[in-house]
């Protein structure tokens, strides 16, 4: 009747029972499996060292950079993209994990020195602690032996750095706040490590930020020094050129000398005319004096000249002696002397003037060469000054950056000493081990039942009409009973 009422295709109640039957039959195995997993996991949590976690918040601050000129950062020929938080966080994480930072922390907090082991408490706790430490030591040695085939004495500092590296984490939720988490077997030491790590990170990043500015400032400083030396040399050369030629300004000097030369030349022309006049005057006086002398000679000829005078007729008309006064003669003689002196003075003045004209002309002749050299030097100086100005702007930028007083990273508050361990969480271990154990055990039961492997489990009951097979020697009574029930 039941078979007729059953919906075609749906499993019969007997088939449903068959599905659970292997689990029911092998419940002892499953229970043992899960219990063992749970207890082992619980025992392992007591073997593991407890870890305490301390953390500190780090604020990442966008830094202001002073630039005197427009600049652009490029990467592979294109503008460099803005760094997202993920990149910043990963960079901070890598910096924190670097040997430079961790080595500093390890050295400062003496993490490479093993703390003295003190066993306190009841005897079983002391025994447990000692046994645990010995097992760990033996396990470490065994692992080293299996790994390298011999015992290698490791560097405690490197080992401490490696341990610290595995217990550091930086997390960020797309904000300017980064969480620096540190795990350590000792709660107070975890807080100290977190604090010191934050400080070292801030200092390191500040130095990291300053270093390019310092290098650039050094490089630009050397270039500026070269330019400064070249400028000094050119300035000295210009100064010595002007000093040697006794010129303050070549154009002004040229103008001044040209004016002087023209005035001297004008003066020379006047002197020439004065000299000509003086010469004419002197000639006139000399002529007059000669006439007077001839007249005087004609009026009272000397005894020696009386005989000659009869033979050579006089060149001048005869004048009466009484007309030639002695004062006139003295005046003429005196005038002749004065005219001579005047002429000599004028000639000397003219010669001096000519010497000045020659000197000024020579000096004027040199000025174009001086001006040319001066222009060349000034052009070179201008060029170097422009280079110096450009370099100086960059140098000032680099100097500002090299002396930046604020780090991009700032520790917001000191780390708090944790009160409870974060690992191992016993319930997680027990639950996961139990769950996994249950899954493995059930899977194993079904698999072996399906494959008909009877070494562990009873074979699935067979629908047979014949008498049941005699029980093999050594079978467990419970299983026999179950088998008998399934056959029955």
């Amino acid at each position: 009747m039941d078979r007729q009422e059953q919906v075609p295709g749906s499993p019969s109640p007997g088939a449903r029972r068959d599905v659970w039957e292997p689990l029911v039959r092998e419940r002892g195995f499953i229970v043992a499996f899960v219990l063992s997993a749970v207890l082992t996991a619980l025992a392992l949590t007591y073997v593991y060292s407890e870890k305490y976690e301390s953390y500190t918040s780090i604020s990442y601050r966008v830094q202001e950079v002073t630039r005197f000129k427009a600049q652009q950062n490029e990467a592979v020929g294109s503008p460099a993209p803005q760094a997202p938080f993920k990149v910043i966080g990963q960079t901070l994480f890598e910096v924190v994990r670097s040997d430079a930072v961790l080595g500093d922390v390890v050295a400062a907090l003496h993490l490479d020195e093993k703390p003295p082991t003190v066993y306190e408490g009841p005897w079983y706790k002391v025994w447990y602690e000692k046994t645990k430490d010995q097992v760990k030591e033996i396990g470490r040695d065994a692992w080293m032996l299996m790994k390298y085939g011999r015992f290698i004495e490791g560097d405690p500092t490197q080992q401490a750095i490696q341990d610290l590296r595995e217990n550091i984490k930086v997390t960020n939720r797309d904000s300017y706040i980064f969480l620096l988490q540190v795990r350590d077997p000792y709660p107070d030491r975890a807080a100290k490590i977190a604090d010191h790590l934050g400080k070292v990170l801030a200092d390191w990043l500040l130095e990291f930020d300053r270093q390019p500015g310092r290098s650039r400032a050094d490089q630009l400083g050397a270039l500026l020094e070269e330019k400064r030396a070249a400028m000094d040399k050119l300035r000295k050369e210009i100064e010595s050129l002007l000093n040697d030629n006794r010129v303050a300004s070549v154009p002004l000097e040229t103008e001044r000398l040209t004016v002087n030369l023209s005035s001297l030349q004008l003066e020379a022309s006047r002197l020439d005319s004065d000299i000509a006049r003086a010469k004419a005057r002197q000639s006139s006086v000399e002529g007059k004096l000669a006439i007077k002398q001839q007249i005087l000679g004609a009026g009272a000829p000397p005894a020696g000249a009386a005989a000659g005078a009869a033979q050579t007729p006089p060149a001048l008309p005869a004048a009466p002696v009484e007309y030639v006064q002695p004062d006139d003669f003295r005046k003429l003689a005196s005038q002749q002397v004065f005219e001579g002196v005047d002429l000599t003075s004028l000639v000397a003045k003219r010669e001096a003037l000519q010497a000045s004209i020659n000197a000024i002309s020579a000096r004027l002749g040199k000025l174009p060469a001086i001006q040319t050299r001066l222009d060349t030097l000034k052009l070179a100086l201008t060029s170097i000054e422009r280079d110096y100005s450009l370099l100086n702007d960059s140098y000032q930028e680099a100097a500002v950056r090299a002396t930046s007083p604020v780090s991009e990273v700032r520790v917001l508050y000191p780390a708090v000493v944790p009160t409870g361990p974060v690992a191992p969480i016993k319930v997680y271990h027990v639950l996961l081990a139990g769950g996994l154990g249950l899954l493995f055990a059930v899977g194993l039961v079904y698999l072996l039942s399906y494959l008909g492997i009877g070494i562990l489990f009873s074979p699935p009951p067979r629908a047979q009409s014949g008498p049941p097979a005699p029980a093999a020697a050594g079978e467990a009574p419970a299983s026999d009973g179950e088998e008998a029930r399934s056959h029955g």
Partner: protein
Amino acid sequence: MAEEPGSKQRAPRRLPGVVRLLIAAMFGALVAVLASYLLRKIGF
């Protein structure tokens, strides 16, 4: 020479119950070690 009657239907020999329990415990411990390793890896 004649085949023992019922020998084809006889169930395969099973291990003793204690041994089966030990095997279950060993597998369970193995799973526990695996679970602990995974949890330690993710920080618990």
